[in-house]
C-alpha cells in the first residue's frame, strides 16, 4: 500500500467494507418488484405448454370477462404495435436471423413461448384469468437434439431456416494439416458442455409508468443493461429514445441472464402505452427457468496434435452450438467470444476452429457468466489433462513445457490475440504449495496401489481469459451492432463532495465502493467525500453497462480520465489564484502547492467552491469543476491463474466429494481485495456447480424437466467446501490502473479443474471422461462403460 503526500493511505488496495451493504442488510431495498404505483395493473403471460406447434386460434375474450381483468391481448392483436426484439450480433454472412416478437402469433417454438397477455387489477386476478384463454394448436414434432436438427427432413423451428442451421463459421491459423502430419500423438475427444440455467436469485421484474402529459415512460427493470434496454426498446416499440427513462434499481444478480432485452420489457412498455396506466410484471421462478436465457449447451469436438516429448503442435476444435428457439440479444456471438481462448496459455503453431449454430425448440441461450470463455477453457484444460495421461506425464509438467513464459510477454497467440502480461509460473508454484500437491500425489498412489474404493483425484486448470469487453473497432469487425466504450462524469460539487457518474450498472459487484476508491485517489479527496451514481438513463445518460468483466477495466478508466481532466482544470484555476505558472504547481493529496513554497496551497475542494462562485476565474475559463470522459480501450486485459481441485470419488456409488479447492488468480492490480475475493468465491462456486450439480434437462418432446429449484440443483452451503484463495499480481499493461477483470475468472477456471480431478481419480479404472454434471449416476455410468459393463 502506498501513502499519499499527506500520509493518508491510498484508497486503491484497501479492503473497504462496502457502502452498498447498509440498505441490503436491513431490508431497506428497492427491488423492482417492490414498486407499487397508483392504478398499477399486473400482467400475467399465457405461455405455450408445448415445444412446437402451429397456432390455429387464440381467444382471449373469455379472460376479459373475469373479475379484475382490464385487458387481454394475443400476439396477433399486438402484431402492429411492435417490431422484433433486438438481435445485436451477426457472426457470419450466412447467419439466419428469423424475427422474434414479444408474443408469438404464428407458431409456438418452445415451452414457455409467450402467446397472450392479461392485464388485471391484481397479480392473482391476472393469473386466474389465464385459465380462461382458449388456445388451439396443431402439435409439430419437437426439435430437441442438435445433431438430429441439422439432418434433412426433420421439423423446422423456423420455416425459412433450412436444416435449422443458423450459421457456420470456420477459421484457420497456421497449417493444422502439416502440424497433424508431424505429430507423434493425436488425441480426439468429444466434450459436452451442458445447458445451464443462470438462476439469479432475484427473478426478473419490470414496471412501466407512463406520463401521458409528456408522452414519456419510466421503466424500472431488473436488468444489467439499462442503456441497452432504452435504445433497443425504442427500436422495438417505436417510442423515441429520449422518451424512455430506464432505471435499474437494486438488481439481485445477473450473471449474464439480465444482459438482454426481453419480451416482457417490450410487453410492459407496449401495454403501459396502450392502456395509459402503470403496469408491472414479475417473473415466477418457474418462468425464470423456462424463459430467461440459458447458458452454454455446446458439443465440442477437439483434436490435439503433439510430440511424444509433450510439445503441443496443433489444436482443432469443431463446435455445435444450441441457439434455442430464437436469437436473443447476443445468442449467436457466445461461441465467437470464446474463439480466441481455445489455445489457452499454450504455444501452438496451428489452430483450426469451426462453429455451427443450430435452432432447436428449447429456451434461447445467451451470455452466462464467462460467455464463451468457460466453454473454450473447458476444452483446452480438459484435453491437456488427457494428453498428459496419454503421455504418462504429470499434467503440471505438460503445461509448464508449453505455456508462455513470463519473460515472453506481450505474446501473440496462434489465434492472433496479443496477451499483455502474466506469470503462469508464479501462480502455479503458489497453488501447488497451497494444495500440498506432492503429498496428495503420494496419497493418490497409495490408494491406487491398494485398490481403495474411495479414489483420490487432482485436477488442474491453468486458465487465462480476455476481459473488459471494449474495443469498439474490434466489436464492429466481429459483427456487433454496438461499441464497447464507457463513459463517466466527475463533478466536484461546490461544498466539496465529489459526484462520480458511471455508465456501468452494478448488480452486486460493489461499484459504489470500488469506484469511489478509484476517484478518491485520482482527485486526492477522502473516500467518504465521493458518491457514485449509476443505473438510471436520466442521471447517467451515457453508458454501455455491466457484463464481460468490463466495469473496472473500461468504466474505471473513464473515471480516471475524467478525474485527470478535473485536476487539469483545477490546476489552471489554482495557478491563477496563487499567481504562479501552472507548471510550478505540484498536485498531491488533493492539494496544489507552489514548488519551493509548500505553504502556498489550494485544495481541490476550495477550488471547486471558487469555480462555482466564479468570481475570479482565469481568462476564458468556464465555471464548475466538472468533466466528462469516454474511454474506448485499444485492447483487452488477460487475467490468469492456476486452480487445483482435490476430490474423492466413491467408485461404488459414484459420489464425488470436493475435498479442497485452491485458486491462485492474477487479476493485475487490485482496487479492493475484499471485493475481488468475493468475486472469486462466487465465480468458483458457479463453475463447480456446472462440474458437479447443474444441468438443464429436456425430454424428447421438448419439456423442461428441470423447471424449478427442486429439480435444478443450485448448490447450497452444504454442497460446497471453503476455498483456499491467493493472488499473484502482474499489472495489466493495457490500462493506467494496471487492473484486469475478475467477475468471470472463477467460473472460467473451476469447471475443468473439478472435472479433471474426477477423471483423474477414475483414470486407473479406464475412465477418460465423465459427462457433466459429474453426478453419482454419470460417474457410475462412466465407470461401467470403461469396464465394459452395462451403461
Amino acid at each position, binding site marked *: 500500500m502506498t501513502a499519499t503526500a499527506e500520509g493518508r493511505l491510498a484508497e486503491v488496495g484497501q479492503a473497504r467494507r462496502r457502502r452498498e451493504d447498509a440498505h441490503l442488510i*436491513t431490508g431497506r431495498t428497492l427491488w423492482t418488484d417492490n414498486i407499487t404505483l397508483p392504478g398499477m395493473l399486473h400482467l400475467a403471460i399465457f405461455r405455450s405448454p408445448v415445444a412446437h406447434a402451429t397456432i390455429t386460434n387464440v381467444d382471449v375474450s373469455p379472460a376479459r370477462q373475469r373479475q379484475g381483468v382490464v385487458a387481454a391481448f394475443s400476439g396477433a392483436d399486438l402484431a402492429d404495435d411492435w417490431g422484433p426484439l433486438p438481435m445485436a450480433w451477426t457472426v457470419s454472412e450466412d447467419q439466419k436471423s428469423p424475427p422474434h416478437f414479444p408474443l408469438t402469433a404464428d407458431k409456438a417454438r418452445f415451452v414457455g413461448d409467450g402467446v397472450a397477455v392479461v392485464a388485471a387489477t391484481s397479480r392473482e386476478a391476472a393469473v386466474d384469468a389465464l385459465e380462461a384463454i382458449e388456445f388451439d394448436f396443431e402439435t409439430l414434432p419437437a426439435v430437441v437434439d442438435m445433431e438430429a436438427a441439422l439432418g434433412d427432413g426433420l421439423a423446422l423451428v423456423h420455416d425459412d431456416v433450412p436444416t435449422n442451421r443458423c450459421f457456420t463459421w470456420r477459421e484457420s491459423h497456421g497449417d493444422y494439416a502439416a502440424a497433424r502430419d508431424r505429430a507423434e500423438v493425436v488425441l480426439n475427444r468429444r466434450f459436452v458442455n451442458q445447458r445451464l440455467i443462470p438462476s439469479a436469485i432475484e427473478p426478473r421484474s419490470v414496471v412501466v409508468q407512463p406520463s401521458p402529459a409528456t408522452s414519456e415512460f419510466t421503466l424500472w427493470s431488473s436488468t444489467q443493461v439499462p442503456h441497452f434496454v432504452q435504445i433497443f426498446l425504442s427500436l422495438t416499440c417505436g417510442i423515441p429514445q429520449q422518451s424512455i427513462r430506464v432505471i435499474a434499481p437494486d438488481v439481485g444478480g445477473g450473471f449474464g441472464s439480465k444482459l438482454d432485452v426481453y419480451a416482457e420489457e417490450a410487453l410492459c412498455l407496449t401495454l403501459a402505452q396502450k392502456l395509459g396506466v402503470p403496469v408491472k410484471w414479475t417473473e415466477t421462478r418457474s418462468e425464470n427457468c423456462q424463459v430467461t436465457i440459458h447458458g452454454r449447451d455446446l458439443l465440442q469436438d477437439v483434436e490435439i496434435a503433439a510430440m511424444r516429448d509433450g510439445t503441443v503442435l496443433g489444436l482443432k476444435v469443431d463446435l455445435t452450438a444450441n441457439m434455442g428457439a430464437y436469437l436473443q440479444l447476443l445468442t449467436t456471438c457466445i461461441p465467437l467470444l470464446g474463439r480466441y481462448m481455445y489455445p489457452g496459455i499454450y504455444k501452438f503453431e496451428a489452430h483450426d476452429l469451426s462453429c455451427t449454430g443450430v435452432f432447436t425448440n428449447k429456451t434461447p441461450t445467451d451470455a452466462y457468466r464467462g460467455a464463451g470463455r468457460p466453454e473454450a477453457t473447458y476444452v483446452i484444460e480438459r484435453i491437456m489433462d488427457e494428453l498428459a495421461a496419454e503421455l504418462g506425464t504429470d499434467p503440471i509438467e505438460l503445461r509448464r513445457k508449453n505455456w508462455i513464459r513470463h519473460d515472453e510477454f506481450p505474446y501473440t497467440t496462434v489465434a492472433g490475440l496479443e496477451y499483455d502480461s502474466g506469470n503462469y509460473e508464479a501462480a502455479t508454484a503458489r497453488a501447488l504449495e497451497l494444495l500440498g500437491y506432492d503429498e496428495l500425489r503420494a496419497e493418490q498412489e497409495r490408494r491406487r496401489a491398494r485398490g481403495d474404493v474411495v479414489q483420490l483425484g487432482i485436477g488442474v486448470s491453468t486458465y487465462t481469459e480476455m476481459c473488459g469487453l471494449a474495443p469498439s473497432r474490434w466489436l464492429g469487425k466481429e459483427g456487433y451492432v454496438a461499441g464497447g466504450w464507457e463513459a463517466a462524469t466527475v463533478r466536484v460539487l461546490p461544498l466539496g463532495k465529489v459526484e462520480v457518474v458511471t455508465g456501468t450498472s452494478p448488480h452486486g459487484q460493489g461499484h459504489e465502493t470500488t469506484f469511489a476508491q478509484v476517484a478518491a485517489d485520482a482527485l486526492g479527496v477522502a473516500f467518504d467525500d465521493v458518491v457514485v451514481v449509476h443505473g438510471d438513463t436520466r442521471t447517467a445518460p451515457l453508458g454501455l453497462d455491466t457484463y464481460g468483466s468490463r466495469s473496472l477495466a473500461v468504466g474505471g478508466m473513464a473515471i480516471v480520465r475524467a478525474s485527470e481532466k478535473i485536476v487539469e482544470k483545477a490546476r489552471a484555476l489554482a495557478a491563477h489564484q496563487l499567481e504562479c505558472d501552472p507548471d510550478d504547481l505540484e498536485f498531491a493529496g488533493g492539494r496544489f502547492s507552489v514548488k519551493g513554497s509548500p505553504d502556498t496551497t489550494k485544495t481541490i475542494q476550495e477550488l471547486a467552491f471558487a469555480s462555482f462562485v466564479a468570481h475570479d476565474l482565469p481568462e476564458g475559463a468556464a465555471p464548475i469543476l466538472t468533466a466528462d470522459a469516454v474511454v474506448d480501450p485499444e485492447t483487452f486485459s488477460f487475467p490468469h491463474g492456476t486452480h487445483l481441485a482435490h476430490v474423492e470419488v466413491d467408485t461404488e456409488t459414484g459420489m464425488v466429494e470436493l475435498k479442497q479447492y485452491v485458486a491462485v488468480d492474477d487479476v493485475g492490480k487490485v482496487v479492493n481485495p475484499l471485493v475481488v475475493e468475493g468475486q472469486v468465491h462466487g465465480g468458483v462456486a458457479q463453475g463447480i456447480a456446472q462440474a458437479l450439480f447443474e444441468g438443464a434437462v429436456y425430454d424428447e418432446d421438448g419439456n423442461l424437466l428441470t423447471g424449478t429449484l427442486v429439480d435444478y440443483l443450485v448448490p447450497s452451503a452444504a454442497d460446497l467446501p471453503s476455498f483456499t484463495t491467493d493472488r499473484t499480481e502482474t499489472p495489466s499493461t493495457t490500462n493506467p490502473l494496471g487492473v484486469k477483470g475478475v467477475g468471470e475468472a472463477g467460473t472460467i477456471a473451476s469447471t475443468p479443474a473439478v472435472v479433471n480431478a474426477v477423471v483423474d481419480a477414475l483414470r486407473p479404472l479406464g475412465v477418460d471422461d465423465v459427462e457433466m454434471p459429474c453426478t453419482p449416476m454419470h460417474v457410475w455410468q462412466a465407470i461401467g462403460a470403461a469396464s465394459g459393463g452395462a451403461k
Partner: protein
Amino acid sequence: MPRISVTVDGVRHEHDVEPRVLLVHYLRERVGKVGTVVGCDTSNCGACTVLVDGESVKSCSVLAVQADGSEVRTIEGLAAEDGGLHPLQQAFHECHALQCGYCTPGMIMAAVDLLENNPEPSEQEIREGLEGNLCRCTGYQNIVRAVQLAAKAGSREAEAHEEVPV
C-alpha cells in the same frame, strides 16, 4: 374473508385476507414489508425467511391465516430501535457476506434462528443449518465466516452477562 391479527416487527396489524394468500405476499403487499423477498415458488431458495414466534419459517410456505395471532419478525425489524445493527447484520457487512443482497434478508433471518439453537456452531453445522437458503453470488464462504463472527460476538456478550454480579 377471514380476519387475521398479526404483529409484525412490533406493530399489530388486522386485515381481511383471502385464505389462499401466502404469508410472504401478505407481508409484502398488505403490511408493506418489502424487505422480505420472493425468490422461488417451491420453497427451495429461502429468500423469504422470517421468524414466526421466534422460529425461522419460509414465509412462502405458510398461509397468512396460519400466522393469525403470531409475532412475525422480518429483516426490517432486526436492528435495535436506535438503529444499531444486529450482530449478524454487522458480521455480514464486516465479512463481505453479500454481493447482490437479494438472498441476504432470508439468509440473516435463518442464521438468527441457527444461532439461537446452536450458539457455537462448527463450520459444517453452519453449512448444514443454512442449507435451505440459496445464494448465487458469494459461494457461501463469507456467509459462513459472518455467522462464525456473529457467534463469537454472541458468546462474548454471554460471557459479559455471566460476569455481572447477581
